[in-house]
């Protein structure tokens, strides 16, 4: 029974991993660009949730949307002020741009919020629920399910809507897309908005169930890399499967080997993937 508990917990957390990683994979698929600050977007989503709760007494729905909107706006701003310029430049500029951004966001958060771990004040999602002998915090359950739904929604957005097909067109062939009247610049900005928004709302969801500090951004960023590498760079559906798998692996490793080893296993998996299957489960290399 404890084992079932572990597995369920792992899958639920993995669902959130899937959601924010799908943002990262979207950017990679569209622009062949890795956002080293993606974990920080998640972390900021968590703090937005906290601030909205504390200042505006908003409930989960409110702060979830607030986090999505705030981070989406940030993503678009970052695209126009920074990414657009470095994407055509040398690799050094591309890597350093978001790497520096990560530092900036992370240490600003340390400065403003201190390094103490936080939790959200009691809210609509507090408390535990008993599902057939498995005790779960309500927040974990809701967050996990919401994350899966949102990831699938993102996938459907990309594959079933006009906007989505425009995004994919730009990813496929920028020049051809331009000839069809699509503005690649706008589409890429939109992708950044979606990517950051996904990270933001994932952060808000996570904040309901797990304590955090500014340091979590670094970990989430790396987890996103692993999920995207496993699921395939560019595939949102791949991120979904991979996120769940990684969450599961992490929970099981913590259970069998000890909590300190859970990250080691995940990062080790990443290195193994790079060696043996860089294109992941479902993506293009």
């Amino acid at each position: 029974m404890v084992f079932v508990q572990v597995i369920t917990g792992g899958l639920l957390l993995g669902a959130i991993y899937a959601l924010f990683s799908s943002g990262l994979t979207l950017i990679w698929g569209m622009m062949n660009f890795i956002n080293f600050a993606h974990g920080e977007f998640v972390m900021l989503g968590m703090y937005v949730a906290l601030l909205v709760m504390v200042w505006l007494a908003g409930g989960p729905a409110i702060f979830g949307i607030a986090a999505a909107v705030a981070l989406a706006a940030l993503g678009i701003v970052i695209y126009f002020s920074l990414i657009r310029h470095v994407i055509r430049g040398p690799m050094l500029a591309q890597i350093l741009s978001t790497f520096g951004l990560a530092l900036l966001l992370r240490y600003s958060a340390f400065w403003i919020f201190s390094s103490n771990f936080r939790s959200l004040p009691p809210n609509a999602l507090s408390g535990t629920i008993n599902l057939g002998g498995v005790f779960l915090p309500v927040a974990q359950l809701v967050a996990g399910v919401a994350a899966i739904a949102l990831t699938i929604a993102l996938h459907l957005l990309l594959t079933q809507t006009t906007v989505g097909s425009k995004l994919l067109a730009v990813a496929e062939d920028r020049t051809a897309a331009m000839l069809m009247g699509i503005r690649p610049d706008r589409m890429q900005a939109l992708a950044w908005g979606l990517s950051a928004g996904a990270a933001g709302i994932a952060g808000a969801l996570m904040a309901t169930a797990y304590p955090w500090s500014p340091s979590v951004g670094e970990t989430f960023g790396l987890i996103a890399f692993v999920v995207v590498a496993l699921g395939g760079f560019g595939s949102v559906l791949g991120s979904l499967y991979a996120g769940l798998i990684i969450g599961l692996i992490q929970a099981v490793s913590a259970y069998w080997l000890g909590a300190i080893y859970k990250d080691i296993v995940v990062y080790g998996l990443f290195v193994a993937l790079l060696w043996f299957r860089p294109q992941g489960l479902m993506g293009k290399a």
Partner: protein
Amino acid sequence: MKNLAVPHLRLVLLAAALLAYPLVFSSAFYRDVGVTFLLAAISASAWNIVGGYAGQVSVGHSMFFGLGAYTPLLFYTLFGWSPIAGIPVGIVLSVVLAVVIGMPTFRLTGHYFSMATIAVAELIRIFVGTWDFVGAAIGLQGPAVARGWWDLTFRSELPYYYVFLAVLAVVLVTTAIVESRRFGFYLRAIKASERAARSLGVPVRQTKLKALALSAAFTSVAGSLYACKTGFIDPDSGFGILVSVQMVIVAALGGAGMLFGPLLGAAILIPLQTATNTWFGGGGSGLTYILYGGIIVLIARFEPGGLFELWHRIWPQRRSRAHAA
């Protein structure tokens, strides 16, 4: 003829200034700043070989630094040997690690390599923190009292300063030699366009691996020097991301891919860092990294070539490279 004399004169003046510094600024504080400056210059110059010249941006170079820092103190702790015994071991381990990381990632685009470096550095940091054999979270210590010169444990900063200066000279001379020979040309070609380089017969993957291995070896030595100087190492000071960050920003600020770029970067950042640490006390380190993050973003956005590039842009002059005359 006049142009020929000037660069050499500048070099002589620089060498003289570096040699005389600790004698002129002889307080412990200034000498310590000097030692910190040299260490930063050595690590950043080591990073520069693969990150600046070859354009393969490692953001996890601390893995090599940490290996080089742990091995001397480990040999001392386990067997009571002089820390010097650990230095070659650190180099060998670093080179092996470099090859292990480079082999799969160098056949993919540059982003994979960068991601791999950050993941592996973090992996090692966490792992070392759990391994009692190497001190786990507490870390390792060096000789408290020197048993002889070979313990590299000095009371005064002065011997450290000159040892570090000698190592810096070795790194810079090696880089200069690389720059002027085929290997250096191939590195710069790879950075500019891998596809074109390949079509001209450049063995891209092997060249990148060699650059990474060389860079790793020198970074390892820098780590060893650090461990000998501070007499202490733990997972964060050895393998932490901030170690990697400093190498990158020092090189990039001065000018990645230029021989003296890292030196310039260190000359600006180390005094700056010392100042902010002094003014803001303990909390200063938080502000320092906010500043670092901002500087890195500005460099990426406006001048990836660093200050040297900016200088050349404002005052265009014929750049003399030793080989092109």
